[in-house]
């Protein structure tokens, strides 16, 4: 069938409507906020003039309507979040206390199930391994690489290579790695790179994704492979932003490269480091596609998000799926507390 451009026309029209809506909403909001306060300001000025003429006491200078401004700035975000995330989060929490079809209240039964079923306990342990290892390893690789290629020749190319996996979807990345881990029996030629390396070193080919807990680590490699690029880009930018005079001063003091790294580089990039670690931790808690594509949670590799999807959407167990989601909410609390402390420090500093 040949390509009919005219048939695509409504799509462009729709896209245009979308862009017009964008300009109208954002532009309108800014305009509104600009014009309305200006009008109030003029009125106030007039009042002041009138007051000074009549000799009456000056009207009490009202606190600037900061709160009102904030409300308008935040309005679109708050509305969308309420519909798209807050509502669903509340609904999920309620569902977690109900049965599979969401018809009757069952109290804490779903939570009891979660902490007594050995396969689910395994899922929780796996998630813990993921959330500890991924941010740590991905950030380390990103940082080391950022330091190593900084100011090197072909820096842009070198960075693009590491960033490349970020442009690939999680599903695509998992397929790529499944290919790396592929297994063929000894008599056959290997098609997986990892087994080919093992064979050429004189070993026996292995079915990598079958053996727990090795398989979980192999899946973590996929996530690290994707996310190291993110860490590298953010950290590299932070490193470049360290003021030259500090570096110069330290150099004149004769500090060693090692000291330089720990005493100058690390403290300077701390805010960026926090952003990276926090973002990666949350992304890892929610990891879903990788496990689903690579093993579907078989061989003891499942994680919370994958199990949640299976329970709620494939098995029709809304209650149990929701309970797992609520447990995710709980897991994020330490990160939230850490973030609160950071914010406090920032406000004080």
């Amino acid at each position, binding site marked *: 069938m040949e390509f*009919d451009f005219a048939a695509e*026309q409504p799509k462009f029209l729709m896209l245009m409507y979308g*862009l*017009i809506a964008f*300009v109208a909403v954002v532009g309108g909001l800014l*305009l509104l906020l600009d014009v309305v306060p200006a009008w109030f300001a003029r009125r106030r000025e007039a009042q002041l003039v009138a007051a000074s003429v009549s000799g009456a006491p000056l009207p009490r200078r009202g606190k600037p309507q900061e709160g009102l401004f904030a409300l308008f700035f935040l309005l679109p975000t708050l509305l969308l979040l309420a519909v798209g995330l807050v509502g669903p989060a509340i609904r999920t929490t309620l569902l977690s206390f109900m049965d599979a079809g969401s018809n009757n209240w069952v109290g804490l039964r779903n939570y009891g199930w979660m902490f007594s079923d050995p396969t689910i306990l395994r899922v929780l342990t796996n998630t813990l391994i993921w959330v500890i290892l991924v941010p740590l390893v991905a950030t380390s690789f990103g940082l080391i690489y950022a330091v190593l290629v900084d100011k090197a020749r072909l820096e842009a190319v070198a960075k693009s290579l590491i960033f490349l996996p970020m442009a690939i979807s999680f599903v695509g990345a998992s397929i790529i790695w499944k290919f790396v881990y592929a297994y063929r029996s000894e008599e056959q030629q290997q098609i997986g790179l990892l087994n080919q390396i093992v064979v050429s070193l004189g070993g026996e080919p292995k079915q990598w994704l079958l053996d727990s807990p090795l398989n979980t680590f192999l899946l973590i490699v996929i996530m690290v492979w994707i996310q190291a690029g993110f860490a590298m880009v953010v950290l590299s930018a932070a490193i470049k932003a360290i003021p030259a005079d500090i570096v110069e001063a330290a150099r004149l003091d004769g500090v060693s490269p090692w000291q330089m790294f720990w005493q100058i580089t690390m403290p300077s990039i701390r805010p960026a480091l926090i952003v990276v670690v926090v973002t990666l931790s949350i992304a890892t808690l929610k990891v879903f596609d990788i496990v689903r594509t690579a093993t579907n949670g078989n061989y003891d590799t499942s994680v919370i998000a994958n199990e949640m999807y299976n329970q709620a959407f494939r098995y*029709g167990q809304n209650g149990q799926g929701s309970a797992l989601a609520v447990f995710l909410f709980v897991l994020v609390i330490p990160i939230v507390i850490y973030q609160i402390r950071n914010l406090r420090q920032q406000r004080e500093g």
Partner: protein
Amino acid sequence: MAFARSRQTLAIAGVLGLALGVTACGTGNDKKSGNAGSAECTAYEKYGDNDGKKVTIYSSIRDIEADRLNESWKQFEDCTGIDIDHEGSGEFEAQLGVRVDGGNAPDLAFIPQPGLLKRFVDAGKLKPVGAATKTEAEANYSPDWLKYSTLNGQLYGAPLGSNVKSFVWYSPKMFKDKGWTVPTTWDELIKLSDTIAASGTKPWCAGIESGDATGWPATDWIEDVLLRTAGPEVYDQWTTHGIPFNDPKVADALNRAGTILKNDKYVNAGFGGVKSIATTSFQEAGVPITTGKCALHRQASFYANQWPQGTKVAEDGDVFAFYFPAIDPAQGKPVLGGGEFVAAFNDRPEVQVVQTYLASGEYANSRAKIGDWVSANKKLDLANVPNPVDKLSVQLLQDEKTVFRFDGSDLMPAAVGAGTFWKGMVEWINGKDTAAVLNGIEGSWK
């Protein structure tokens, strides 16, 4: 300033829109259902006039298969004026639930799991079929089939396509060269396996990896064996949880399947040891037959589409299938299979008309002619089935002696049938013993 700029944008947008509008006028592509009065349409007159109505269908059928679907009801659309909008998705089972819960259900869905169908009936989402559909369905499908979509005395959908799972694929050429004959009893099958094993090559190849559905080919094995050793009545009790999942009869069936699947002398031809079954994709599993590395592969009729290009699928070709032999002659000739049911979430007249049409013999023949399709529809004329394996399947399904049973994992609640059963089979292949696996699955069935 901002205001001026946005006015400018609007003006540009207007000009662009105008230009696009002009191009659109050049190519009028309005679809007309004009030939309602022509000769080939007389057969569709009974469906009445529903010109301009639209019926949405959601299924798991995609790609070429979906094109064939569209082709199969093309004439019906042209004559009745109903526009059938079909959408296929690989995420069908999970997404259907989301759409229904989200208040965005399709008019019709082709549901391949009676267990899933029951879930929607229990939730009050599905509509029972209309009288016309019911008459058509009862005339064209055996009660064996209709019982799977009959709940609380109401019929919730007629079957559509089907497949036969009780097949063993082999290479007629290889068999002829080596002087082997197609086994017709279980003992012959084992004897043949031993003969092949003694000749130095492993006889069986298998693979149960299938993305997020990994494990299902093994459940078919167990069901097929259980149907043969314990008989259809026990099988029915097992799928409805009338007997526990870990009943000794089930354990026997699993162990018997294990004499092939977990026998290092028999498997896994072309791939490695027993454990390689777990990571071999089911699509690739039978391919070693074409290279002479494997002799036997138990898989459904639809495996005909998985052979490498250029493989001739015929009784005298490169590959063909024989009936997975019975074990206990007293249990008749059991056939395990699957298929999808046309269930309705809406009962508008045009939806019922489409539902009735899909249950008819005319539709079955129209679809079968296009190829690669099997149905249990009694009006399906064998002459309209081009592909030899499909022919064999239709023969089996229409055979009076056949005792048909639906794939058990599709009948069970999804948490078991598409959850712990699949996962249990993966663990079983991966070395876990029969009792532990069965107890685990039984424990998950609440």
